[in-house]
């Protein structure tokens, strides 16, 4: 596969919600290609369909119509369990509210995707892998901390580590800095840029223009369609490795 081969490719994708009588066309005919190694920020006003699009990209939901090729494979017709396997193997999620398991150590939180993976690992192997990934997000030494013992930024790093543990093709982040202050947001962006430098594709939703300039490409959504799609002219390089 060539390096510029599209990891993500959407063709005329629609998503329509039916709530009782009302029909909400959240995504209306989006066609989009994202190549390996890209770092995309999706912007747009509230209700413009960003999260809906992210759920489709994350294989958490299926499009009402249109085709979605992930890493060359058509995933629009897969069933629940097949989609779960795709998420486990090829995708990593970072959420606005972190979504770590409460009263569970950082290590065990990071191990979670491995427990549902194809490989059968021993407890020692699980721990070994989780430790390594935790170190890459700068949290070595916090292995046994529970989420309640970590700051928001640290929790988000644990969540990023969890997203990384299965070496995903794409990391999907819906407002990853929505709950963080600007300094911590910059730290998280620094980590994203580092990962992106290592070749991991990142797609992120954000409301903040300065966060969007950390990406390489900005997509603006409006009423379920892509309104503009252009590269970032003056990219902001966040400082990283701060703890």
């Amino acid at each position, binding site marked *: 596969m060539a390096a510029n081969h599209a990891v993500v490719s959407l063709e005329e994708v629609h998503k329509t919600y039916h709530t009782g009588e009302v029909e909400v066309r959240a995504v209306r005919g989006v066609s989009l290609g994202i190549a390996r190694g890209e770092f995309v920020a999706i912007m747009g006003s509230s209700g413009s369909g960003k999260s809906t699009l992210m759920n489709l990209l994350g294989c958490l939901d299926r499009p009402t119509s249109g085709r979605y090729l992930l890493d060359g494979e058509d995933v629009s017709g897969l069933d629940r369990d097949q989609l779960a396997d795709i998420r486990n193997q090829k995708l990593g999620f970072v959420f606005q509210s972190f979504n770590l398991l409460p009263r569970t150590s950082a290590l*065990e939180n990071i191990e979670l995707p491995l427990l*549902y993976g194809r490989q059968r690992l021993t407890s020692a192997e699980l721990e070994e892998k989780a430790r390594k990934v935790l170190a890459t997000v700068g949290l070595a030494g916090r292995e046994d901390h529970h989420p309640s013992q970590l700051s928001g930024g640290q929790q988000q790093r644990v969540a990023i580590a969890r997203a990384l543990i299965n070496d995903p093709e794409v990391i999907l982040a819906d407002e990853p800095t929505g709950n963080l202050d600007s300094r911590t947001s910059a730290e998280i962006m620094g980590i994203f840029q580092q990962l992106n430098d290592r070749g991991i594709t990142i797609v992120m939703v954000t409301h903040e223009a300065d966060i969007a300039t950390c990406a390489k490409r900005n997509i603006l959504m409006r009423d379920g369609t892509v309104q503009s799609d252009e590269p970032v002219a003056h990219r902001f390089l966040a400082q990283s490795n701060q703890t």
Partner: protein
Amino acid sequence: MRFESSFKIAGRALRRNKMRSVLTALGIIIGVGAVIAMVSIGNGAKAQVEQQIASLGENVILIFSGSVTSSGIRTGWGSAGTLKIEDADAIRREVPGVTAVSDEVVSTSQVSAGNQNWFTRIYGESPEYFDIRQWPLSDGAIFTPQDVRSANKVCVIGRTTATQVFGSESPVGQVLRIKGVPFLVTGVLTPKGLSPQGTDQDDIVIMPYTSAMKRVIGGTTLRGINVQVSSPNDLAPAQQQITELLRQRHNIRPGRDDDFTVRNQEEIAEAATSTSRVMTLLLGAIASVSLVVGGIGIMNIMLVSVTERTREIGVRLAVGAHGRDILTQFLIEAVTLSSIGGIIGIVVGLTASQLLSALAHWPTLISISSIVVAFLFSAAVGIFFGFYPAREAARLDPIEALRYE
């Protein structure tokens, strides 16, 4: 498959909520403990009854006057006064295999010695009675056939009567007044304890039946006849022959009801143990209710925890869990809780039944089968009551679960 992961996942989830896990298991602990303790009480009672039945003597046939009519109405054992001394003599003479026969009359009366009064049961018997009932004396001697022939004023008394009337003094050789008539106490019986019906068998005065008929009770009919045969094989034929003999002697035409009742020891044992068997079942059933309540407790907590952990389930689904993985996790959580509860419950139940027998002196008997059944049942309760919440969890939609507040 992913099964061992599921164990790891469920174990971690349970450890995360230690207090809740303990409280959830408590319902099962109490349920299983109650089943074990109750069944051990029931079994203990049954064993005691069986022991008491054995204390009736061996290879015994009991004959009572009075009978069950064809319409099913019982005229009452010993009430109709249809048995005669001659009937007992005839059985002694004519029925093969019979080794001992005791004529029996029964009454209750006030007895006294000095200024001590006591109300007790008066039994008139033959000297063979003590053999038939395997009831030795602890002191003195029984009355003789000569005492029976002459209707002498002698008697043997039970331990309860002895202490009530004579206190700590030895009753042997002393005089006991029964309905004003002075009787010489020749012996004291060894204690026998409670009968299957719960009466104190040691609260008794036993005298020659002739003396009882002539000097205490009056009348010429027997309440019953106690018969002993030489071996268990003789029980059925002897019972048959006694029935025929008595029908013939009482001129009962074919087709009419007996005016007496013949029961062998096995039939009496059957009736008594069936009562305690019913009691065991009843106790076990009541205790099982608490086990079911414990199961509902598990279901309740699991349902609450599915709701409370909706986001957790969403995260698991997002990172690649199949619906089946979630189902197995919650089922394993439920079954782990219920079986650990079951094991602790067994320990609690065993301890409770030991305490009951040690402190309250209730007879208890622990049966392995009740332990095994209680444990399997508690595991089954986990599966049964855990399945619905687990399925609810497995059906959640990942997006909605992640968005859940």
